[in-house]
């Protein structure tokens, strides 16, 4: 009897690469949360005390019960709540987020127009925060308890204490209105026109089209709002980098590296930053959430035509389909960012994959 038969139960554990299994688990988790987000936005829409019929139909149409009934059945409002949710979910899956009451356009169309502007702003801000926050944090940790450490501590605490909306206003007033060293509102000088939209990011599109004048103008417009937005995350990342680096500095292998006489630069980059990177990347992912939040408060001041300003306008006019659309899209963007962070986490730290 041949004894080389296939094992009776092919072990799933041995089959897939650990990183692949890790990825699949995270993606499934993200999908589950994305579904949860649709549930939350739907429940919130239905919590609203106002009557959607009254909000959408004119006075005369409201007087006619036949029209009201037709409108209700057209929009599925005569069906039970769970069936309405299924319809809503079906719409979301097909990219239908309802119609904005202010722009009278599909919310999805509005969002497609505004999301790239916000991603450009938040992306610039996270880049600035990562570079400055990590640098400040490393300096603070290496110069622990010296003057520069204390100064950076106070500065980063101020950074996380400043109300973003107020700072945006102050920066706009000082740099644009008084000193006139930054361009005003918007993303680019209107006189220059715009580069053909490829990515939706003005800076990248301008570079792709070789329009250096537009690129310069776009960067100029980007600097102040991005810095205002980044201040909070710079403070956050400075604090976290400092404690992450301090923790690694106390480890035996760092002391061993020092004892065998490795140059400080090698110890810092190869030994310390490599392991300190894990908590830093996690915090950076969370920080991106606060950047997305911050755009709501900053874009309104700088007239930056992004999701934040759209959210602000829709929230203040109680344009609920638009508000829910923003909640949904921003929630999903945030989810994707955190998924990327989780993946990075697994790439940086092999131990994570095995858990």
């Amino acid at each position, binding site marked *: 009897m041949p004894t080389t038969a296939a094992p009776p139960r092919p072990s799933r554990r041995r089959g897939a690469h650990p990183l692949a299994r890790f990825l699949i688990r995270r993606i499934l988790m993200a999908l589950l949360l994305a579904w949860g987000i649709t549930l939350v936005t739907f429940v919130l829409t239905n919590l609203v005390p106002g009557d959607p019929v009254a909000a959408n139909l004119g006075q005369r149409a409201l007087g006619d019960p036949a029209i009201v009934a037709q409108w209700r059945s057209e929009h599925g409002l005569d069906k039970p709540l769970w069936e309405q949710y299924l319809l809503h979910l079906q719409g979301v899956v097909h990219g239908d987020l309802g119609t904005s009451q202010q722009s009278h356009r599909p919310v999805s169309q509005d969002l497609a127009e505004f999301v790239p502007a916000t991603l450009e702003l938040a992306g610039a801000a996270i880049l600035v925060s990562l570079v400055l926050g990590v640098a400040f944090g490393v300096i603070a940790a290496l110069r622990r308890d010296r003057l520069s450490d204390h100064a950076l501590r106070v500065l980063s605490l101020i950074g996380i204490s400043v109300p973003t909306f107020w700072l945006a206003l102050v920066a706009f007033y000082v740099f644009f*209105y008084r000193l006139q060293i930054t361009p005003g509102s918007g993303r680019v000088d209107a006189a220059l026109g715009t580069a053909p939209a490829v990515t939706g990011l003005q800076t990248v599109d301008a570079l792709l089209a070789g329009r250096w004048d537009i690129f310069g103008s776009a960067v100029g417009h980007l600097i102040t709002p991005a810095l205002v937005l980044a201040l909070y995350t710079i403070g956050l990342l400075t604090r976290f980098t400092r404690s992450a680096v*301090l923790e690694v500095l106390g480890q035996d292998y760092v002391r061993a590296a020092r004892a065998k006489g490795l140059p400080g630069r090698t110890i810092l980059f190869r030994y310390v930053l490599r392991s300190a990177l894990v908590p830093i990347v996690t915090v950076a992912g969370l920080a991106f*959430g606060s950047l*997305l939040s911050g755009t709501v408060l900053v874009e309104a001041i700088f007239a930056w035509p992004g999701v934040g300003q759209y959210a602000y306008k829709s929230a203040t006019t*109680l344009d609920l389909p638009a508000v829910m659309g923003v909640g949904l899209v*921003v929630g999903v963007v*945030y989810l994707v960012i955190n998924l990327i962070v989780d993946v990075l986490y697994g790439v940086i730290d092999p131990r994570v994959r095995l858990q």
Partner: protein
Amino acid sequence: MKRDPLARKGLTGRLPHAWRQPLAIVGGVIAIAWLVVALAAPVLAPHDPLAQDLPRLAAPGPGHWFGTDQLGRDILSRVMHGARVSIPLTLMLVALSVLIGGLLGACAGYFGRWVDETIMRVADLVFAFPTVILAMVVAAALGASLTNAVLAVLVVAWPAYARVTRGLVLGVREREFVLSGRLLGFSAWRSLRVDVLPNVTGPVLVLATLDIGTALLLLSGLSFLGLGAKPPSPEWGAMVASGVEVFDSWWVATFPGLAILTVVLAFNFLGDTLRDALDPRTARAIKERAL
């Protein structure tokens, strides 16, 4: 002997050290000053915060040190009275989040299984949204009012406490003194209260102190967006928003913004010092370095 960072009386034992920190002292002084202003605003404020009887948009000067707004109200008096709106609401908000989040987190950690799953998945869902966006959506859905803004912030604030408390409870649940309590016949509730709670309070209090600032920023941010306090309430965020309309009169928005900044800063100074004193990682790093 190794000192257990979660040991009982960790907070009180290390508190005096925390107080020696200059940042904590500065933070404490600013916080107390604001509490005094909040309590004594009716006596301290030179004008009625709602009276529209001064020249409009007057620059800061004698008689109205912070200037007046577009309706001829004294901004100094409004900022002082604003402390009576924002500070008590923020403190109440954080206390409620600690209570709700702490209780749910403790249940999740202590009972485990489906209780844990249910509570923590709901918390995950809240974490799936950036805070301002979710708070904004909730506030918009409930209707614009200060109470609803507080509710909206509460919705986004409790899960942080649930997570931290759950983690801490999981850490002590299987320890001998908890188990021996159960063996002595303590009910789940008594065991949670007597054996588990004292080991959880320190870190949760630090989180709460740091969260006071965040909660105030969020609450005033919602008011700034028009989803919180309604005029003529002297709420700081709403005052900054009214300054946007007249932004060449810089004082209208500047002073309420500074009020928010100083309150948040005070609690962040306090919380940061407390965290350093209690954080086992920092404490360990200090010890290692001292070797």
